[in-house]
Structure formats: structure tokens, C-alpha cells
């Protein structure tokens, strides 16, 4: 390597400016490429420069073959990404050293000097200013991630307010879905847009099922690593590597099964518990949701709630009880929507009394969902609309405002321009069980139903 080029490379690295060292493998001739220019002996044509800069933007080193058949090795030198952790809490004591090992430059912000001490966080840069002032001084850029862990809104909120309007590549906030719902209310009141707030990963971290502070730190770090390579995956897809999207990359669509109704037309027996092919009807709807690509399944029970919940024993679902089930389906919808994971970008609402709806129906709806253009997605067969329906998150509030024994059908008319229809091959999307005669008719078609 030429001394001049080496010194230029060192200078760029010291200044933390991203730069790529390009080496022609045939003869070792090199060039230094950054966003603005090209230095060194190696000449690169316009196409090669574009490709090198694309790799530099994604911090993706590797071999590039030019149109003229030259093989170049591109080595990207990009400054370490930064992780700003707000809150010098127990999780931080585990996360700070782990993130440092994973290559992040870690800064911990906490004005509570009793917590932000070098004894608790040895070797970590500590900042005890108020979070928004601290973040402004630190400077939030596209190479920075922000995680808030104080559990104290007076500290977390100002940090998040700064982060959601900055170009940081990741924002995470500790707290349950309920805590996050209240946080969303406060930040909305403070002037944040829904788009900005949607950037917050909450509850923070991949759902690994861990409970202890170090386990939660692992789940946060796992999500950070996933986020750090988002652009990288984009590049890989462009280059035709066709990677399979990792979990968390696909849209988060939840399934909600309404199973609280009184089935008054069925007589005394609860239709949801009636066996269809030996399986209680409600369990069929839940199993269809579980077998689909939905990220989670929430079931609302009400009438004979204990018995319905017992029929679902052993299934990985969240059961929510609707004490007001007698007031109609809208109350179950409201209960269920309130219990969905905060990360859900959309929900597929299944009805417990539609035993011929399968995972395939649900997956068709999910496949048609595009978070960039969130539509109401309705299944259709022979020109008729059916159930279940997929609803984007921005309509949850309108769905929760429905009253009485009505579903969300009226909203489909009200938002006709946002409705997208998806064709289904069979009529299972119409078939619900309201009377004993319906129940008698369900068995035969079910056998033929495609899985």
C-alpha cells in the first residue's frame, strides 16, 4: 500500500468519515473512495464507483467484478455505530458491555447521578445531563441507536421526542404494551406524528421470552444487530442474493379471534364449544390463526368464558376477558384491540363461529398487506365479500369507537377507497354457524377444505 494512501485512510478513520479502500486483485493497485471523491492510482469507471459507494453506504465489504472483467476488493472503513442508552439501570449494566463487544460505541445518559456511576458502569461514557440536552450534544445521526430504559416518563419521553425526529437507525423503549400505549398518548400530545412514533420498537427487543436484566439485554442487542443490517439486507436483495426475511422484518400482523358471543339462536348449547370433526369450533378458528403467519393470536372470551378458555388449553394464545360481552360484538372488538401487541401494524379479525376459515385465508390477507400503503384487506369469493378482514393499525381507534352488537363492517363502507379485495378459492369465508342446522352442514365441506 502506498504511504500517501495509507495516511489518507488513517486520517479519514480518525475523522470517523466513511471511506472504502478498493484494491484491484490482479495487480494490487488501490484507490480510496468516499462519497465525494476518488484518490490513488486505481481508476474506476462510473458504474464501478456507484457500486463501491453503494457498498460503502451499507458498510458491506466484498468482491466486485466490473463490466470489463476486473475483480476489485472493496474494504469499507466505517466508524463504529453508537448506542445511546438512556437510564443507568440493571439492564444497562449488562447491555453496555455486551454492545461494546458487538462493536458499538456505548454512551449512557442518566441525570440520576446515584445510578450513573463508574462503579456501576465501569469503562462506559456517562452523561448526566437531561436526556434531550444530552442527545443534542451527542448528536443523533444515522449511525446511532437510542434505547430508553429508565421506566420514568420524565426521562424517557424527552429522549424519545428527540430520537423520533432524528435520523437514528434504531429506537427502542422499555415498557409493556400498556405502558407504551400511554407513552404514545403523551408523545402524540407533545406533537409527534404517528409515523414518527411507529419508529419506536416497543416493547424493546426481540421476544426471546427472557426475564432477567441480562436476558433482556440480549434481546435488545439482538434487535439492534438486526436493525444495523437492515440496509445490508436491502443491498443483498438488489444483488439477487434473495435472502429470506428474518423475523421482525416482515410486517407485524396480529390475529384476533372473537369468541365471546352468546349464540342465542343455537339454543342452550354454546356453539363455540360444539365439536366439528372432534375439535371445538372455537379451537378451529384459533388453530387457523396459529397456523398462519400472524405474529400473535389474541382471543376474546366472554359468555361462558372459562369453558371457552378451557377448550383452548395448551394453545399459545393470549386470552382476554370481555365482561361486557352481552352488550354486543363491538365490546369484544374494543377489548381485543386494546390487548394487541403494540408492535402490531395490522390485525386479522377472525370470528369464533366460522369453522371453515383456515390458515390459508389468513395468510392471503397478510401477504396482501403492505405497511407502506396500509389497506383494509377483505377476502372475496365469487364477487362477495367475506371474513376474516385485515385492518391496519390507524383504523384501530375507529374500530374501538363502534358501539352495540355490530362488527367493523360499517367502516369498510366508510373507507371504501382504502379497501383491497383478495380473491379466495372457496366459500369458507362466508360460512358461519348460527343455528343447529348450520352446524350439521359444516362437517362435510370441512373435510374437503384445503389446508
Amino acid at each position: 500500500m502506498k504511504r500517501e494512501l495509507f495516511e489518507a485512510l488513517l486520517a479519514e478513520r480518525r475523522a470517523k468519515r466513511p471511506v472504502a479502500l478498493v484494491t484491484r486483485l490482479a495487480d494490487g493497485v488501490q484507490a480510496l473512495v468516499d462519497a465525494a471523491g476518488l484518490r490513488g492510482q486505481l481508476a474506476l469507471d462510473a458504474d464501478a464507483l456507484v457500486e463501491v459507494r453503494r457498498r460503502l453506504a451499507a458498510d458491506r465489504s466484498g468482491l466486485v467484478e466490473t463490466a470489463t472483467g476486473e475483480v476489485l476488493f472493496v474494504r469499507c472503513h466505517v466508524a463504529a455505530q453508537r448506542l445511546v442508552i438512556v437510564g443507568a439501570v440493571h439492564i444497562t449494566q449488562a447491555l453496555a458491555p455486551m454492545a461494546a463487544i458487538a462493536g458499538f460505541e456505548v454512551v449512557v445518559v442518566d441525570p440520576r447521578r446515584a445510578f450513573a456511576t463508574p462503579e456501576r458502569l465501569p469503562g462506559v461514557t456517562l452523561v448526566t445531563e437531561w436526556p434531550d440536552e444530552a442527545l443534542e450534544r451527542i448528536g443523533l445521526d444515522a449511525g446511532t441507536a437510542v434505547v430508553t430504559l429508565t421506566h420514568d416518563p420524565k426521562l424517557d419521553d424527552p429522549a424519545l421526542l428527540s430520537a423520533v425526529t432524528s435520523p437514528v437507525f434504531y429506537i427502542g423503549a422499555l415498557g409493556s404494551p400498556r405502558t407504551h400505549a400511554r407513552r404514545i398518548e403523551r408523545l402524540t400530545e407533545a406533537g409527534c406524528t404517528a409515523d414518527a412514533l411507529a419508529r419506536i420498537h416497543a416493547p424493546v427487543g426481540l421476544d426471546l421470552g427472557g426475564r432477567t436484566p441480562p436476558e433482556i439485554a440480549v434481546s435488545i442487542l439482538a434487535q439492534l444487530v438486526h436493525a444495523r443490517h437492515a440496509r445490508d439486507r436491502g443491498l443483498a436483495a438488489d444483488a439477487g442474493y434473495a435472502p429470506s426475511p428474518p423475523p421482525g422484518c416482515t410486517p407485524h400482523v396480529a390475529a384476533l379471534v372473537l369468541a365471546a358471543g352468546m349464540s342465542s339462536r343455537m339454543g342452550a348449547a354454546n356453539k363455540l364449544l360444539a365439536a366439528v370433526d372432534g375439535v371445538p369450533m372455537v379451537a378451529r378458528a384459533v388453530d387457523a390463526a396459529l397456523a398462519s403467519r400472524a405474529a400473535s393470536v389474541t382471543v376474546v372470551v366472554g359468555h361462558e368464558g372459562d369453558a371457552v378458555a378451557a377448550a383452548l388449553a395448551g394453545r399459545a394464545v393470549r386470552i382476554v376477558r370481555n365482561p361486557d360481552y352481552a352488550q354486543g360484538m363491538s365490546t369484544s372488538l374494543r377489548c381485543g384491540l386494546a390487548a394487541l401487541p403494540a408492535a402490531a401494524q395490522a390485525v386479522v379479525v377472525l370470528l369464533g363461529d366460522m369453522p371453515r376459515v383456515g390458515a390459508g385465508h389468513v395468510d392471503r390477507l397478510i401477504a396482501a398487506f403492505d405497511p407502506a400503503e396500509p389497506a383494509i384487506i377483505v377476502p372475496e369469493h365469487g364477487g362477495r365479500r367475506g371474513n376474516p378482514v385485515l385492518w391496519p393499525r390507524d383504523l384501530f381507534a375507529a374500530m374501538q369507537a363502534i358501539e352495540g352488537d355490530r362488527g367493523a363492517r360499517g367502516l369498510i363502507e366508510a373507507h371504501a377507497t382504502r379497501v383491497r379485495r383478495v380473491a379466495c378459492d372457496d366459500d369458507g369465508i362466508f360460512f358461519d354457524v348460527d343455528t343447529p342446522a348450520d352446524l350439521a352442514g359444516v362437517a362435510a365441506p370441512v373435510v374437503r377444505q384445503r389446508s
Partner: protein
Amino acid sequence: MPIDIDALYNARIKALAQAAHGTGRLDAADGAARRDSPMCGDQVRIEVRVADGRIAALAHEVRGCLLCRASAAMIGLHAVGTATADTARLRERVVQMLAGAEPGEDWPELSLFVPARAHRSRHGCVLIPFEALDAAVRAASPAG
């Protein structure tokens, strides 16, 4: 220790914090002081102008919890006109109140903070505005 949040954050404390009397900066301050609470993280800065042995103008900036903002707002409500010689006694009054003494007759709102007695880690939230007030007044006094 069970925390009686309702008593700690009673409606009048909330109203006081929201009213935020005295928030801001002075054009020309004679003295200023900053204090923080290491347990809760609150940060308070108080500026004063003094004339004829009394506080002539006061402004404060608080980044902090409800208790701290309410405490500073109480100062914003009452401090102008207070004798500079009295701020040390006021600070001591708050210390004693948190330790269990009667809140006294100085400022009626002081009794709102009685529930904080039970929460040692929150004493600083109530106290630091008074510490900052006294320090700001001392910084403004010619004798130092």
C-alpha cells in the same frame, strides 16, 4: 414500604406543578444557582434579583418530576418580597418538615408536601429548589 401515590401526587400538587409559577429566565440576574437530585435526576436553576434586602424578581428552570416542579412553582408564587435573610431559614423549614416537623406558617402550600416525608428518596425533589433559592440569594449578596 407501600407507596401511596395518590397522596404523594395529590391534585393540588399536580395543579401547582402545572401552573409552573415563575418559570423562565431573568434579563439581568444578581445571583443564580443550580442544584440537582441524584436519586430522582431533577435539575433546578434559580435566578434572583435582589433590592433593599429582599428578593425583587425570581425565575426558575426545572427539568424534573412533579414534586420538584411543584416545589419550584411554590417558590415562584411566594418568593418575591421575601427577605434575603429568610431563605436559609426557609430551606431549613423544608428539611424539618420532611423530617416530621409541622410545615409552619410561612407558605400554606408547604403542607402539600407532607406526604413526601414517607419517601426518603424523594426528599431531594422537594428540597433542591429551596437549596437553589438560598444559594442564588447568597450569590447575589455583596458580602458573599
